[in-house]
């Protein structure tokens, strides 16, 4: 238990670098995916733009959704959002904080994909090859003589060197260099803009809502831990429940065997030691199991407990033993006097 607590604390306190590591890995994965992808421009006037825009925009969307889905906390967010308020009011600031921190991490891979695509240049070249200014880059005098469709057909083949036949109009390398230069300029501008935005958001935040931020961080953390602890407690309970259930079943079987006279003395002879054992062991084994049951011992009650946990979470106020009946608030009762003295444990 102590070991898990140490690891847990290490990860939590070092969460900054842990999350930075995750973001770095996702960025690398995205770049690797791009380099493994075989870009294949159709080189046809109507299809170039559609293909390129599809490659530029669809994988980022997929990566973003994947990033959200793979984050374990998304179900926690959904649960917290949709639960009935019950005795514990919902705090929209906490929900916003949880969503923002998940979205920020999920945005890393799409941004890297878009940046790498623009810096590489093939996509942009494929999309905008028909929009190259032939007048300034190539033989401008020949342009008026060409019908628009013929010009479009010629220029659409710029990304494909093996079928390009317009060198008399515009040198292919010139067009490729021009478009790649613009693409790379756009790519670096995009990278600069996103880093600037991230920096502003991160650095300007302490100037404003710092206290609110600390609260949201604490309570979103709390919700996560509480959910895990509830699952842990339920598992303990289920285990104890099952053990006692099986124990009782065996005891009942023994009891039946005792009552059944068909086996007579033999049954008594064989049953007595087991009954004696069963009589002795509850005192040590099943006692602690029954303690773990916390008084909830049948299916109906357990179902009621689980329903109640979802529909009406307890308020965030410890130290109250009053039942949930009546107006549900035990605030009128006087608090028992507290006698503890604060001790500060330093683990440094």
């Amino acid at each position, binding site marked *: 238990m102590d070991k898990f607590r*140490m690891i847990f604390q290490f990860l939590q306190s070092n969460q900054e670098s842990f999350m930075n590591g995750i973001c770095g890995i996702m960025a690398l994965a995205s770049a690797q995916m791009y380099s493994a992808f075989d870009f294949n421009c159709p080189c046809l006037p109507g299809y170039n733009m559609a293909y390129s825009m599809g490659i530029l925009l669809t994988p980022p969307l997929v990566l973003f959704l994947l990033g959200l889905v793979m984050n374990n906390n998304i179900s926690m967010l959904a649960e917290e959002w949709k639960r009935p308020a019950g005795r514990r009011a919902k705090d929209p600031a906490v929900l916003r904080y949880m969503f923002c921190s998940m979205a920020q991490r999920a945005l890393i891979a799409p941004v890297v994909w878009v940046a790498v695509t623009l810096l590489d240049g093939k996509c942009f070249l494929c999309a905008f090859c028909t929009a190259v200014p032939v007048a300034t880059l190539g033989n401008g005098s020949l342009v008026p003589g060409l019908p628009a469709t013929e010009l479009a057909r010629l220029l659409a083949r710029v990304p494909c060197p093996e079928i390009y036949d317009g060198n008399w109009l515009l040198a292919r390398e010139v067009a490729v*260099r*021009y478009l790649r230069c613009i693409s790379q300029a756009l790519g670096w*501008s995009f990278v600069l803009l996103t880093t600037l935005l991230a920096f502003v958001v*991160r650095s300007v935040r302490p100037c404003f809502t710092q206290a609110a931020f600390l609260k949201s961080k604490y309570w979103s953390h709390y919700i996560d*831990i*509480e959910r895990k602890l509830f699952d842990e407690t339920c598992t303990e309970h289920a285990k104890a429940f099952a053990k006692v259930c099986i124990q009782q079943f065996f005891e009942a079987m023994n009891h039946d065997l005792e009552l059944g006279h068909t086996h007579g003395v033999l049954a008594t002879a064989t049953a007595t030691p087991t009954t004696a054992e069963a009589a002795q062991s509850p005192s040590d084994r099943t006692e602690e199991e029954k303690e773990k049951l916390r008084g909830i011992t049948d299916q109906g009650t357990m179902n009621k407990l689980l329903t109640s946990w979802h529909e009406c979470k*307890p308020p965030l106020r*410890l130290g109250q033993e009053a039942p949930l009946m009546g107006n549900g608030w035990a605030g009128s009762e006087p608090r028992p*006097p507290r006698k503890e003295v604060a001790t500060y444990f330093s683990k440094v």
Partner: protein
Amino acid sequence: MDRFRMLFQHLQSSSESVMNGICLLLAAVTVKMYSSFDFNCPCLARYNALYGLGLLLTPPLALFLCGLLVNRQSVVMMEEWRRPAGHRKKDLGIIRYMCSSVLQRALAAPLVWILLALLDGKCFVCAFSNSVDPEKFLDFANMTPSQVQLFLAKVPCKEDEMVKDSPARKAVSRYLRCLSQAIGWSITLLLIVVAFLARCLRPCFDQTVFLQRRYWSNYVDLEQKLFDETCCEHARDFAHRCVLHFFSSMQSELRALGLRREPAGGIPESQEPPEPSEDLDGGSGKAHLRAISSREQVDHLLSTWYSSKPPLDLTASPRLWGPGLNHRAPVAAPGTRLCHQVDV
């Protein structure tokens, strides 16, 4: 187990070494980025300079912002700068120290990019090929000015038909590369000399002030980490108690409703399950909660931590720290020390 504790303590005690590691990692990433970037000079008159200079300056700016982003201490510094003074007055010297340390580390990756670009030479050749004086090279004597400009614009592109295998192109390209590398090495030398002087001469000026500022900036960082860690512990125990309370209050409700049927030879009705408070009274559970056990108290604690940090004086009575922490019983003697229990 011991390894984790040692690593944990190491990271906690030397945030400077962690930051140095991140700085080196970012520099390595910069080198990799530069080598995998496909340089593509447009070889057109007006675009060359824009592209070349843009590539020399934009990535360093982005890398500088990245360096500030991944450094945790920049956020800590901003928080320390913007917090209300409260019981602990602010020392601008510490903030200046933290700022300069953050900036120094963030400048490493951009400088690596700029030096690589200059020593490699492609950026410089692309940006300044049109600005070369044609008088220096004899091959341009029999070309018209516009032809010369066109030729010079194409110098960075070796494979272009107009300038392929031309000795004039090679001459201009060599000249510009030589200039670029000279500038690159000069900047490198200058930076190293400045860093060396700054490091060697610093002890001559205000060494004690420097030591104090370094200590307190490290302290601020550690304090923030420990506060987060303590909040984690607290949240865990809060949640534990909440869950146990929930289970026990379900029982009470059921008892009140008379829904608990006679158990079949199992638990006798009179046996009470152990009260949760008994479970946690001994030892770490309640102590971790430190008598903060409701939402309002936790919110109040967090607001007070932000708006009115306690003074850096551990021998003072806790009563003097303000109303936020008064949910404990009053401390008996005014000179009572807080217990420091160190886990070894």
